[in-house]
């Protein structure tokens, strides 16, 4: 098979190259097309995102991008932004960083998106920061609370959206300090930045050493009985959870099984009551009294004008998919992006969009301020506490804002903005 194999190899390589290369226009060398802005025409703005739509990590998250898209469709149906319709390209990366590399390059190099919006996940998105930077692609509102997105000097085009995990940890710990004084506080966190940053926040408020038992979990091991058992053995009364929804439900369920009933203080990431209740099924009453955080309107607050707007959009443009916190999140991202596009003006360029974000001052569904400025690229700067009572998750007390450093946790008292009448932001 000698000679033939090698001829075969050569032919096969050529074929493979040709097949892979097929469909390329191949006319754009570097430097050409300086006048036009990638992804922007007079009638269209193309943006893209990477999300886990399949695979074990897709639970919950797979609903975000469709919600954002639905909001864009709503805006498009109302005339678009400066006459342009928004096309949202959603790429599935299965939460696999290698796939993220591929799909983001496809978005940028092939689909020529104007910006990458709300790319999800810390390990996934970390890998494309440099690529997006060197291609000068705006990298807006990353869907993760890692502090990596807030590096204006290193990554001038990258902006966060979620309050970072340290802020969240501080606010949860502040609640414990004020209302559960003297109780034994313990901590369970995911074994990555999420858990670590959150723990750092908790310890900033309570003081290092104040957390009696610290445990971690990995997503590949669904048995948390050993960790919960350790909390029980140590007599923990308050447990702070920096967990994804699956592991919040698992922890609460496991604790009940062990006859362990602490006060749960749960990160916004894993505190969405509909998601948890659905997963726990008949065991959902275990969530009674759980304290969580959030910074967007509660999805069950039908009196809230934002929820009314988003419900309407969900009905009209999202196939009336089950409405939960992820839907609210996705639409809030869409709303903010439309605000930014409007602020960037009619002659849209990438620089103008970055300037518009840095200008800050956006008022939207959020309960706390967005921190965007030239020196701060982190997203929301606070949270409000919620409690599950009678099977309903509602906010209580004031909203809080703080920073990821040693600043105090302050009440944030400004009244939230109301949505515009037609649900589409206008130039402010």
């Amino acid at each position, binding site marked *: *098979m000698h000679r033939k194999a090698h001829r075969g190899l*050569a032919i096969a390589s050529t074929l493979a190259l040709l097949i892979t*290369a097929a469909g390329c226009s191949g006319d754009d060398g570097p430097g050409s097309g300086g006048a036009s802005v990638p992804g922007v025409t007079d009638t269209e703005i193309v943006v893209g995102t990477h999300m886990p739509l399949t695979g074990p990590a897709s639970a919950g998250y797979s609903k975000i991008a469709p919600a954002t898209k639905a909001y864009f469709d709503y805006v498009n149906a109302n005339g678009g932004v400066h006459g342009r319709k928004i096309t949202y390209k959603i790429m599935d990366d299965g939460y696999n960083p*290698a796939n993220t590399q591929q799909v983001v390059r496809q978005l940028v190099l092939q689909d020529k998106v104007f910006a990458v919006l709300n790319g999800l996940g810390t390990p996934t998105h970390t890998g494309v920061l440099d690529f997006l930077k060197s291609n000068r692609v705006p990298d807006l509102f990353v869907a993760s609370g890692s502090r990596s997105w807030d590096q204006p000097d290193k990554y001038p085009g990258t902006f966060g959206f979620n309050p970072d995990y340290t802020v969240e940890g501080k606010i949860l710990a502040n609640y414990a300090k004020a209302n559960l004084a003297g109780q034994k506080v313990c901590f369970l966190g995911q074994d990555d930045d999420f858990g670590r940053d959150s723990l750092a926040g908790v310890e900033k408020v309570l003081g290092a050493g104040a957390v009696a038992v610290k445990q971690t979990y990995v997503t590949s091991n669904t048995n948390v009985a050993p960790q919960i058992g350790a909390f029980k053995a140590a007599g923990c009364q308050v447990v702070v959870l920096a967990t994804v929804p699956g592991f919040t439900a698992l922890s609460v369920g496991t604790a009940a099984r062990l006859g362990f009933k602490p006060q749960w203080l749960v990160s916004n990431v894993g505190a969405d009551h509909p998601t948890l209740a659905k997963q726990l099924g008949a065991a959902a009453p275990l969530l009674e009294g759980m304290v969580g955080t959030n910074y967007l309107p509660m999805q069950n607050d039908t009196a809230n004008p934002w929820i009314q707007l988003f419900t309407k959009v969900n009905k009209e443009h999202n196939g009336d998919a089950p409405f939960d916190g992820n839907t609210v999140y996705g639409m809030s991202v869409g709303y903010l992006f439309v605000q930014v596009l409007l602020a960037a003006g009619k002659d849209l360029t990438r620089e103008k969009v970055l300037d518009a974000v840095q200008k800050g001052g956006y008022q939207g569904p959020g309960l706390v301020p967005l921190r965007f400025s030239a020196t701060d690229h982190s997203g929301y700067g606070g949270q409000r506490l919620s409690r599950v009572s009678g099977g309903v998750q509602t906010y209580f007390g004031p909203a809080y804002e703080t920073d990821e450093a040693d600043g105090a946790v302050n009440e944030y008292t400004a009244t939230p903005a109301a949505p515009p009448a037609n649900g589409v932001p206008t130039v402010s």
Partner: protein
Amino acid sequence: MSATRAALPPKEQLDEPGGRPVDRRGGSTLLRHLAVVLAAGLLLVAVSYSVEPFRNFQLATVAAYLCATAGLTVLTGLNGQLSLGHGALMATGAYTVALCQTAFADRGMTGGWLLPLSLGAAIVSTVAVGAVVGVAAARLRGPYLAGVTLAVAVVVPALAVTFDGVFNGEQGLSVPVEPPPLSLGPYFPYERWQLWVTGAATLLALLLLANLIRSRYGRTFRAVRDDEVAARLAGIHVARTQVLAFVVSAATAGLGGALLAVLAQSVSPGAFSLTLSLFLLMAVVIGGLGRLTGALWGAVLLVALPDLTHSVTEMLTLSPAVAQRLEGNLPLAIFGLTLIVVMIAAPGGVQGLLSRLGRALLARRPTRRS
């Protein structure tokens, strides 16, 4: 029977037009392989200028995967050892490159020779790991080997998390890579440079593999696969052969992983999951097991798949409710179905199909001539 087969020249070698047996010594084989590799290299450079950056990047990724699939096809196809853990070997190479490049960058070292050095280190470390796994593997057969290699594949995230001081847990490490050398001009597209680097490394690896396959070692690999007892009777040290095959395979997998890390500029356990190991295996079998060309088809498939999957869903215009369900899932379903149908209809994979086609076409020619 394998021993006799190994001693004879491969059958096709006699099938020259005119039926003249052609004498092929090692030297001429090497030269021919060199010529093929040079031609492929030139072609690659030409292609790198004629296609878009994204295609360049995709081709570079194909090259990186090709390293791994070529190594796996040598192990599984030629030596008959099943590995579900090649993703872990790739991770070994990838993490080594990440640690080396970071160390160089931290010390402010620059220079074109650093990357080859890191890649070399990646190969060395993977060879070490591969030797350990290989020694264990040589004692095991069939599903038992599959079980151990599966456990190896699963252990990667655990190690990354356990030693997160070094590997930074599930989040992984970044891989600092220098921009293309200035001598290529200030606006040299980065993706083209990536293709050159990975293409060169992969072609070199393929050259070595192709020669190995044609050498005495390659014949012993096949002999052991076909019949261990006969191989032993023919004086082949079976266990040593199996370990050697594993080590060779590990070396290429490590290089593949290292190249992937260089392309992605980051490493994390999520990129080297069990799924990757299983996909590698699917790729080499679908491509055509035991053939380097099959490995190439497999690598193309690995890269083209996510791309194709997306195009499939984009082609359809669906209501949001339906689209939300199909997005991502429909392509996987199609891929799964294709996999099943291909395995039932064409167990030789893509390359087997092409060979059959080629033979059918070639078969006509000599009869016409005579």
